[in-house]
């Protein structure tokens, strides 16, 4: 149990896919100008990564190594397409907001990376925990970025005005430039925290 917890929890901070592993950076910038889209994307990835980890850990022994990559991709793409279809049918507005990035979930490096380095070597339960943890880490990072950008860049949270009327939001935060710079400092901050934790451990 303890072990599963540690598999799960490392994705949240110590091996956070965005802040530490620096994988799947595009969505962290592209769809984080509001909390809602960040959250949707985060949850989508959480779902895809977990489902794919499970799927890969099941089929890992049947896959011929020569086509390992294509098979993994098929698995991911299937899951993504399913998510696409579901979102399109039941949440068309969100589907539109995520735009092309929803399709691009297929190629988010974090998903394939987990399949390669974890799921293809571990059993279903462990792979499930790993996927859940990584996905949660991703989603949390997305929401943090989206939250900061929306609150300070538009003065709203989930679309609701929360800043005083006199708050004059600097638009830079919802533009590419501001997003890059903000994430740069977030990465720096996480680095400091991770180092502190590791020091405390040692």
């Amino acid at each position: 149990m303890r072990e599963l917890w540690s598999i799960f929890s490392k994705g949240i901070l110590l091996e956070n896919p965005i802040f530490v592993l620096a994988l799947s950076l595009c969505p962290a910038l592209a769809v984080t100008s509001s909390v809602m889209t960040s959250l949707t994307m985060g949850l989508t990835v959480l779902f895809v990564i977990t489902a794919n980890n499970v799927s890969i850990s099941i089929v890992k022994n049947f896959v011929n190594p020569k086509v390992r990559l294509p098979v993994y991709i098929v698995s991911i793409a299937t899951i993504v397409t399913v998510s696409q279809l579901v979102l399109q049918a039941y949440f068309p507005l969100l589907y539109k907001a995520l735009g092309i990035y929803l399709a691009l979930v297929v190629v988010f490096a974090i998903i394939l990376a987990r399949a390669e380095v974890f799921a293809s070597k571990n059993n279903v339960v462990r792979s499930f925990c790993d996927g859940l943890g990584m996905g949660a880490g991703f989603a949390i990072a997305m929401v943090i970025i989206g939250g900061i950008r929306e609150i300070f860049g538009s003065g709203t949270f989930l679309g609701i005005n929360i800043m005083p009327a006199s708050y004059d939001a600097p638009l830079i935060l919802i533009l590419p430039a501001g997003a890059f710079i903000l994430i740069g400092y977030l990465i720096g901050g996480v680095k400091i925290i991770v180092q502190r934790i590791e020091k405390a451990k040692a």
Partner: protein
Amino acid sequence: MSAGQHDESSNSILKIALNLAMACFVSGLIIAGVHFVTADAAAQKAEELKMDSMKALVQDVEKFEPVEGKEDWYKAVKDGKTIAYIVPSSSKGFEGHMQLLVAVTSDGTVLNYDIISHKETPGLGDKANEEPFKSQIIGKKADGLEVVKDPSDKEHVQAMTGATISSRAATTAVAKAVEEVVHFTGGK
């Protein structure tokens, strides 16, 4: 020594290909299944969405009907009468194309419009889809649809501060729609 070495038999070309094909087969099954389930819901939602957006443009309406001979045109029908045409239009904005849906009465008055996609700067150019800019355009006819930068001129459309280009783009697109409708209906 190398991890890549498996027993030779599993390496025949066909076997490898079948392995992938198998995966694709399973995938195809799943996707086809999900598609089968969601397709109708999706189509329905899309239709609903379209109606909603059109309803937002024209209130008090019974139904929307496609206009014959005009792709993507709809007419809003109330009491059997066509009260407005809903027409797609577009123009070049500050950074790229701006797509609008414009509701125009048959005599060429702007009822309402909605910018459905654009690349204008958030917080600046994208205000062209909000009040108070919007109300300047609503109710105008073709001759009023021109952007000026003179606060005393109430006849025309006032440019938004810092976003003249976006103002002009939105206004132009609306004017284009009005013109087309007037051309179609003959201005009655």
